[in-house]
């Protein structure tokens, strides 16, 4: 009996109050040490869904996934972008060292196609990472995707609006992303397996635009200041 209990404890399938246990679930490092520390030292869970909840693009949300994309595309795994709101800009990704041959962009027309596509991608052994901008999803459908991700043991990241933070979701990891004061990205862990949620950390993201970290940015004065807007 105690043996079963021990395995349950070690697999972090049972919550034990404040104890933080390093889970031995399969995971992919995020590439950001500060975030990895908050996520039990491992990173993005494999074979499970992760959610990133954010209000608007352009706060460093892709930069957050860039190390994983680089690693996956170079290890011969395919990275799928499903229904992105804007165009992933090829020259920028090429410059960052993402192997674009392994990146496939998919646009689906209706929700049925979307779920079917995701399930197929998630179950395939060639997939490394699936990034989805799903729009509206019912909890039942997220559960379906969760099962597909488990079957294929792949990383799947859903980008959803921040208002879904209050709603319940079967995803294994939920991160709330918000812009920080110094072009950084503040990450709030809403849910994760094996521990209490509520950790916060701030990741420096100013390098995404080659901005030198500076308190007062040097404003280039010019004729535009009066006319903008």
């Amino acid at each position: 009996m105690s043996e079963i209990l021990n395995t349950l404890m070690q697999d972090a399938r049972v919550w034990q109050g404040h104890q933080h246990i390093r889970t031995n679930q399969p995971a992919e490092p995020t590439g950001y040490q500060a975030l990895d520390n908050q996520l039990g030292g491992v990173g993005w869970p494999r074979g499970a869904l992760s959610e990133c909840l954010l209000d608007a693009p352009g706060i460093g949300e892709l930069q957050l996934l860039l190390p994983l994309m680089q690693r996956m595309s170079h290890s011969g795994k395919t990275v799928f972008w499903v229904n992105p709101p804007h165009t992933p800009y090829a020259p920028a990704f090429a410059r960052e060292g993402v192997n674009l041959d392994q990146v496939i962009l998919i646009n689906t027309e209706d929700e049925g196609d979307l779920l079917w596509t995701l399930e197929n991608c998630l179950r395939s052994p060639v997939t490394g990472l699936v990034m989805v901008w799903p729009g509206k999803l019912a909890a039942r459908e997220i559960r379906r995707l969760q099962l597909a991700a488990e079957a294929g043991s792949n990383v799947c990241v859903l980008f959803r609006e921040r208002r879904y933070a209050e709603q319940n979701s079967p995803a294994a990891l939920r991160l709330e992303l918000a812009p920080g004061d110094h072009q950084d990205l503040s990450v709030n862990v809403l849910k994760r397996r094996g521990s209490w949620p509520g950790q916060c950390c701030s990741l420096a993201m100013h390098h995404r635009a080659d901005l030198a970290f500076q308190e007062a940015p040097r404003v280039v004065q010019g004729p535009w200041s009066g006319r903008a807007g």
Partner: protein
Amino acid sequence: MLWLYLHFPHLLLDHIRRSRENPGALAVVEGSGQKVIQACPQARAQGVRAGMRLKTAISLAPELGMVRADHQQEARILEDQARWLYRYAAHIVLVPPDGLLAEVGSLQRLYGGLQAVWQTVEQGLNERQLNAWIGIGHTPLAARLIARTGKGECTADKGHILRALGQMCLLAAEFEDKTRARLQRIGLNTLGEVLALPSNELARRLSPETLAYVQKIQGNRADPKTPWHPPHYFHQQIDFAQEVEQSQGLLFSLQRTLSELEEDLCWRQQDTDSLLLVLQHRHEEPTRLRVRTSGPEHRSETFLNLIRLRLEQQPLRAPVISLVLSVRRFLGREAGAGRDLLGETQDLNEAWHTLISRLQARLGEAALQQLSPQADHRPERAWSASEVLRRPGTRLPDYTQLPRRPLWLLKGPQPLTAAPSRWFSGPERISGGWWDGQRVHRDYYIAQLESGQLAWVFRDVRDGWFVHGWFG
């Protein structure tokens, strides 16, 4: 030389019967639709005979399926059979409308005896659900005559063949009507008696053509035949006796054709990546479906799954009367690379092609895209999207010299509605496009908006401010 002749007594009937789901009585009627020409065993059991008037036949078997005889169609079906026979024999001659001739003397060593050749052919006929009478003779004509009597024997012995020919009556020997009447008037009844006549007498009393015919049967005169060569494409037509309204019905008959394609590809050691499926309707333009796989493929199961997906997406417009499957593009087959000896690890290359083909079949080929940078200064032209074609290699050009760009590019520049809260860098002037009329003259800045988004904004030549990308 030894010849094998295949006589198909009712080829059209077999062709239609084997692609039918429910085996019912079936008959082939004459072009004018008055007479039954061929009847299948079920129809014969109900009393339908060849040569019977159609009305009589229908009253005997009310459920009788009818197919109108069509010579072009028959010729095409015969060619299908020749393509199949070509796997076993190199020298094939088409004998329209219902015969195939193959030189088998040279095959005996390959197959280990004439008996083995015979069995191979017979087995193939059974697999293809075809009825054929086989005959072997030392000349093409002898083989044909023996086959058409339906008493073919597996022997290479010339004496035996001549004896069999000798017992044949004049009608079976296929003399012209006039010649046959004259021979009968002389008092000859079997082919053997004609063969026994001295040749100069035969030429003098009858005609030189008759002599030539007899000599060709005997093998004393050359009877050259031009061999048939298979065309380099796969083409098969399925004709339905009843119109098919459900795609399920199409899939059933496609299954057989696709497995024949698989076998054909297997014999050629080739793969293909595109199939063309043409569905003929009675009153409408034919539907053309191009089914593409993302990589070389030969398995019928994969093709069938892709076609099923396509048909699910695209319901039939009208009932289908016939269906043509053709393949014109062949690729050399390569051995699966990433496979280990015991076949335990999955072949990733294959899995990739399967996944992409499935997605393309359901979503359409344009729904999947691959991105690549292009050499252009204008941001909206510095990238391109292309269809996913094949699994890429891992060779990478060096892109580290490219300028800093945002990870998101907007599908079109959006007007900047409020002044940014902070400006970071700029201006970066991008000017170009005078060479193709798509003129761009902009100053780009990196700025942070009130919402915290880091934007790539520009001011164009008319002083308008736009957001063109997000530093995501």
